[in-house]
């Protein structure tokens, strides 16, 4: 207490005891260069030791009063990986203000803007970066392309991405470019891009199983099954667990009625992806192909449970129920499918046939007409309609529809033999019945059974890279609030 009193008088510190500011110390101050610990930062960052990294950065920033370029840069990168984009943007802007000429910083700022979804601002920033950079940089072009895609200007996007591809040969650019073509519907161009990408990245890229799968899927879309199979096989050779490729390969096997091989593929895929509705759908249709209807139904139902809003699955469920002659159930599934997707002719055709079996000829006729409207070029619809009309006794209508079928059949050369057979049988029956105009029921019913099968091919396989929305989850809440005695 004594000392304190001598030091302070009336609360004012006595003058001579104030430490003099900036008293020159005996030793020369050690001037650390700003970059002296950059190597350490870099090392920790590359080892993903972000905790230590952050402490170091804090020290560096305090020492340099926030003017440390590299520390700011690394902090920005770390913050970005943690998902704090706004804060990382601040760091990069600090870097940029410290060194206006550095293109990297502009690029990072632009990237932050892009990640925040501010595409037009990002685009401007990238354009600025492009001007600042002396050599053409594939990264800038690539990102410009991405920005244009997000802004919806595909031609400019393609232009930028093409340049990126030429400069960098980078996988991401190829994928983005191919995606652009796909979005514009130019499948062939997309295939070419993928081919080029595969040739270039064949040795280096470990991720090329994905590329090969994408290419395979494109071939599949184009209907070039041989090429598709080749590519998918290649993808599987590199990554035997790749679920997408397995699913696609299985679907192709399924298309060729090679159900056992397809099932073996699906079995592997199911291990890595047990909750995929597409997978269970395809497995179900495999069983359907093998005529194991109960197994097919339970697989399809599981698929339906996992993705309740998917009309494919409902359609297939309807088909299998028809095969087991449970027409009421089939009707329910098919009507649900038409509700979810009203513009599919095949569903209406199936619906019509079910209605016919449920003894509702009026609605069946309506459904046939609707199917015909939706898909006027499908030959199987008039044929089925003709068979239906014939069984109803409307011979003139049947003849008209049969005529229509024959017109369409001439236009499409690759028609399944089953359809043609049914048609010839039907025409015979019609002729006979028109001859004996008594109209007594002749034994011409045999055409009917087959006609159901005519549209199966449509139903079989949809290689679906699963839709993004997770289905509304079926969460049956079973609360049994019971007393336990």
């Amino acid at each position, binding site marked *: 207490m004594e000392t304190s009193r001598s030091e302070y008088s009336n609360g004012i510190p006595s003058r001579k005891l104030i430490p003099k500011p900036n008293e020159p110390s005996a030793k020369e101050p050690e001037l650390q260069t700003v970059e002296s610990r950059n190597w350490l930062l870099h090392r920790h960052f590359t080892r993903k030791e972000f905790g230590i990294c952050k402490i170091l950065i804090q020290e560096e920033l305090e020492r340099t009063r926030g003017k440390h370029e590299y520390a700011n840069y690394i902090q920005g990168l770390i913050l970005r990986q943690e998902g704090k984009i706004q804060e990382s943007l601040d760091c990069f802007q600090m870097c940029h203000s410290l060194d206006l000429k550095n293109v990297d910083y502009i690029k990072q700022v632009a990237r932050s803007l892009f990640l925040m979804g501010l595409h037009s601002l990002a685009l401007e920033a990238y354009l600025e970066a492009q001007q600042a950079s002396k050599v053409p940089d594939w990264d800038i072009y690539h990102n410009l392309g991405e920005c244009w895609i997000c802004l919806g200007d595909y031609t400019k996007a393609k232009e930028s991405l093409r340049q990126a591809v030429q400069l960098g040969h980078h996988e991401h650019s190829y994928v983005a470019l191919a995606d652009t073509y796909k979005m514009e519907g130019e499948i062939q161009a997309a295939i070419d891009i993928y081919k080029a990408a595969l040739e270039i990245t064949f040795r280096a890229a470990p991720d090329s199983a994905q590329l090969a799968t994408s290419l395979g899927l494109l071939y599949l879309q184009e209907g070039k099954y041989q090429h598709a199979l080749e590519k998918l096989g290649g993808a599987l050779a590199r990554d035997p667990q790749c679920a997408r490729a397995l699913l696609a390969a299985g679907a192709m096997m399924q298309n060729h009625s090679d159900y056992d091989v397809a099932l073996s593929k699906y079995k592997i895929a199911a291990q890595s992806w047990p909750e995929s509705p597409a997978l269970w759908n395809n497995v179900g249709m495999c069983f359907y192909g093998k005529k194991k209807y109960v197994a097919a139904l339970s697989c399809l139902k599981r698929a339906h449970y996992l993705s309740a809003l998917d009309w494919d699955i409902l359609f297939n469920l309807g088909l299998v129920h028809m095969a087991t002659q449970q027409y009421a159930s089939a009707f329910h599934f098919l009507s649900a499918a038409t509700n979810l997707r009203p513009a599919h002719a095949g569903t209406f055709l199936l619906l019509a046939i079910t209605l016919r079996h449920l003894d509702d000829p009026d609605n069946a006729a309506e459904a046939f007409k609707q199917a015909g409207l939706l898909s006027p070029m499908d030959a199987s619809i008039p044929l089925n309609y003709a068979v239906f009309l014939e069984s109803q006794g409307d011979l003139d209508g049947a003849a008209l529809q049969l005529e229509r079928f024959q017109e369409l059949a001439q236009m499409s050369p690759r028609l399944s033999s089953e359809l043609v057979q049914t048609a010839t049988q039907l025409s015979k029956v019609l002729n006979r019945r028109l001859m004996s105009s008594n109209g007594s029921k002749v034994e011409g019913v045999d055409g009917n059974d087959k006609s159901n099968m005519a549209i199966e091919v449509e139903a079989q396989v949809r290689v679906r890279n699963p839709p993004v929305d997770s289905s509304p989850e079926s969460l049956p*809440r079973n609360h049994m609030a019971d007393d336990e005695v």
Partner: protein
Amino acid sequence: MDPVFSALSLYKKRKFEECVTTCTELLDKNPFDQAVWVLKMRALTEQLYVDDLEAEEEGIAEAFMDNETIAESARPGTSLKNPGTSQGGSTQGYRPWTQTGRPVSGVVRPGTQTARPGTMEQALRTPRTSKTARPSTSQSARTIRLGTASMLSEPGGPFIQLSRINLGNYASKPALAKPLFLYILYHENSIRHALQLAVLATQACEFKDWWWKVQLGKCYFALGLMREAEQQFRSALRQHQCIETFLRLGRVYIRLDQPLSALDVCRTGLEYFPKETTLLTEIARIFEGLNNMTMSVKYYREIVTEDSTNVEAIACIGMHHFYTDQPEMALRFYRRLLQMGLYNAELFNNLGLCCFYAQQYDMTLSCFQHALSLAKDDDVADIWYNIGLIAIGVGDTRLAGQCLRLAISADSTHAPAYNNLGVLELRRGRVNEASAFFQAAASLAPYLFEPYFNHSSLSHKMGDLQASYIVIQKALEAYPNHVPSQELLRALEKHFTFI
């Protein structure tokens, strides 16, 4: 008639109130009649006696101030805390999980709600049903309610003044001590005094009476002294094997989060009492808590062969069948429950769902109508939600939307309904509304992965990568094995880690 005899007869007829008044009159005449005194005590106890084995519920305080935990992160399949880690269990994709972070169970019982949630906030939010709150104190809700009996003012002061009574005197007289103990425990609900008496009594009989040891264990258990309780129960079991003791010892291990030891105890119990349904039920419940549904159902099946009217077992088996793609089988079990005379909204709800998935469409809607007419406030939301699912199943999205909105109006915290509304809005192309619904669902129910995933994939599509990246990580926290989430995260990481 001799008034003592008539009081005894009233006691046997379980007319406790009248018995108590008769005893009071008798005691007024002769305060030192021990027989009448004991009779009155037993009548008072009997009025309030409950099966406290089923009443036990873990409060928030115990879940958090838990100093008995052995390992912070237990090995897979050895802890009730994280049921998701066990092998061969059902996943969230098939069987939905409840707010407490475990798969839905066939019956609501105290144990199913004991969640040991991750954070305090989540624990406070977790309701027991949709309306009542979870008990937040160390003793179970029912025990607290018991205590109120002692707070009722009785004419002429309390029957026994615990603070004045000389416990040592009574401890040496077994005929008096046991009723007195039960009176103190159940009527007065004073565990401290009960414990004192039990300690004195067990000393007086030279530690030879197993009954006192069980009671001591009960007291220790209620006070949260698990290790002491364990000792007492074990020592009691050495002297005498009794079903109740096995069950209580099992409960101690469950509280200590050592389900495997609890299973061992129950199995030993089964050696003495083969096919005993209470022990089998306990085992089945523990397996369910460990998310090992196949084993759980196996034990429930054993129960049903022994006791074909066991509601819990039938309901749990039915539930298991429903979530393993066998709605027809589930339907049979639930129908059995209906035949047994159960008649409530939950049952009709489940019947309706089973009918729908088993394609008995004509029954579905009438079941749900019954359910709605029987439903109490907290069930209505769930039933509307399920009707919404049926509407989605028949492709009527407008009806589905209306049902889901009704569900929300009945219970504004119904997260799955918000999620499904979001999906429906997304189908109609209304992105902003969908996103808002997903966010609402996610904030209400952090244990569901669907809203997170939907929100994230939507943001990804819209180009808001930052939001997508943050949200998808939460989805993976809720359900680490969700493959689409993993793929989305991988795609996003390319953007975020690429320099």
